[in-house]
């Protein structure tokens, strides 16, 4: 089990800056995010877009801001669990929490900070009747460990960059790769598309265009997929795995079940310290709501500073908190 002072759920810009504010108060942080990289929507959705309302930066690219934040919090040695979703919080007798992810990673923390932005970026799922029946039994929405697919038959579905990139990658790993795409052409990176057509022309992969997923079959585990072409012809392919890659979409996810007050997909907080109604759980950034709330990164930074000063009493119950400026005291690394 991982032991920390503060467990931050969400490694977007506000979750990252919260590590800095915690560090100034000698509190250690562990961050958990369902995305495989830090940065939240900045890295996932618009890494190259400029942001113009970060104080002190007339213009900064989203990914550059994330990289800078990672630099800024380095002295406080945060630890990360990426690619996992927090599913359960269990309150302990002493008031602390044990947090459990969908992969059974456990974190023991005195305080929980939800900096979850718009929620959990979940894969978009194709509309197929018995899809949930095969999830984890042949249907996977992301390639976490490519070795899983070594010498297996894999069908990928989708037409974006990730479908193209994984098709190219898995062509050298899997026994057979089939890419199913609803159109005749790809809108993803032209280089990747050309490479996929090359692989298909050389017989290294099967490329099935103008077709949609129609039906999954198998006895307990996926064994074949029925496709339907645009002119309604059906085709059945034997396979061990199906990887649908239709992008990600945010969902509030398990947060909805933690007994917090939720209003329109946001957590209601007390603006004195951004605490939720539940002792030792705070919410900062886009995930919270209060009268006058603005969903801005800079507001999240402000919330992080105030929130960490409030959380100090749970981590150091016997100490008195004194407010200090970094210009006076510097940044004292752990």
């Amino acid at each position: 089990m991982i032991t920390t002072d503060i467990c931050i759920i969400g490694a977007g810009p506000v979750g990252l800056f919260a590590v800095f504010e915690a560090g100034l108060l000698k509190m250690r942080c562990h961050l958990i995010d369902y995305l495989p990289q830090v940065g939240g929507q900045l890295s996932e959705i618009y890494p190259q877009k400029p942001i113009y309302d970060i104080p002190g930066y007339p213009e900064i690219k989203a990914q550059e801001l994330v990289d800078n934040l990672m630099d800024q919090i380095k002295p406080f040695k945060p630890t990360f669990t990426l690619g996992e979703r927090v599913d359960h919080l269990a309150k302990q007798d002493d008031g602390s929490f044990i947090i459990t992810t969908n992969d059974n990673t456990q974190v023991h923390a005195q305080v929980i900070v939800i900096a979850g932005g718009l929620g959990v970026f979940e894969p978009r799922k194709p509309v197929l009747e018995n899809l949930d029946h095969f999830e984890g039994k042949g249907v996977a929405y992301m390639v976490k460990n490519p070795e899983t697919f070594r010498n297996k038959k894999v069908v990928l579905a989708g037409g974006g960059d990730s479908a193209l990139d994984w098709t190219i990658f898995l062509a050298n790993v899997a026994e057979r790769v089939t890419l199913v795409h609803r159109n005749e052409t790809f809108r993803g990176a032209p280089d990747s598309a050309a490479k996929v057509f090359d692989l298909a022309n050389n017989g290294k992969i099967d490329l099935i265009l103008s077709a949609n997923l129609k039906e999954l079959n198998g006895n307990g585990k996926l064994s074949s997929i029925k496709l339907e072409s645009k002119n309604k012809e059906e085709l059945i392919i034997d396979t061990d795995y199906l990887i649908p890659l239709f992008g990600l979409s945010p969902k509030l996810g398990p947060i909805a079940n933690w007994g917090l007050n939720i209003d329109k997909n946001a957590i209601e907080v007390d603006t004195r310290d951004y605490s939720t109604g539940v002792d030792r759980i705070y919410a900062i950034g886009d995930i919270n709501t209060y009268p006058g709330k603005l969903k801005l990164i800079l507001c999240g930074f402000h919330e992080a500073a105030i929130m960490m000063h409030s959380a100090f009493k749970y981590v150091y119950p016997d100490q008195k908190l004194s407010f200090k400026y970094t210009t006076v005291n510097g940044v004292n690394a752990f």
Partner: protein
Amino acid sequence: MVTFTVEDQEGNRQTIEAPDDMGLSLMEILKASEYPVLATCGGMALCATCHVEILDGQDELGDATDAELDQLENLPEYFPTSRLACQIRISPLLEGAVIKLRGEDN
């Protein structure tokens, strides 16, 4: 002002009146009208959570742009009438249009 009709995921229709001189997008008007539009990316045509279908008025409004298609292509399902609401300006072209919400909500 322009007037158009919005059909929600349940098929309920409502007439909406919006100012056409404030540089607003259809996504912003849908959100302001309390429709469950996520608009994750805030209007940059980067997430497709404001996916709508133009049931009537497509001739005036035109087809999805390349930036929109890049996102729509990623969805499990989209249609020849699909657009991203964030890329549709509130303008006289919207007069009388019928818009169906397709974007996912929580």
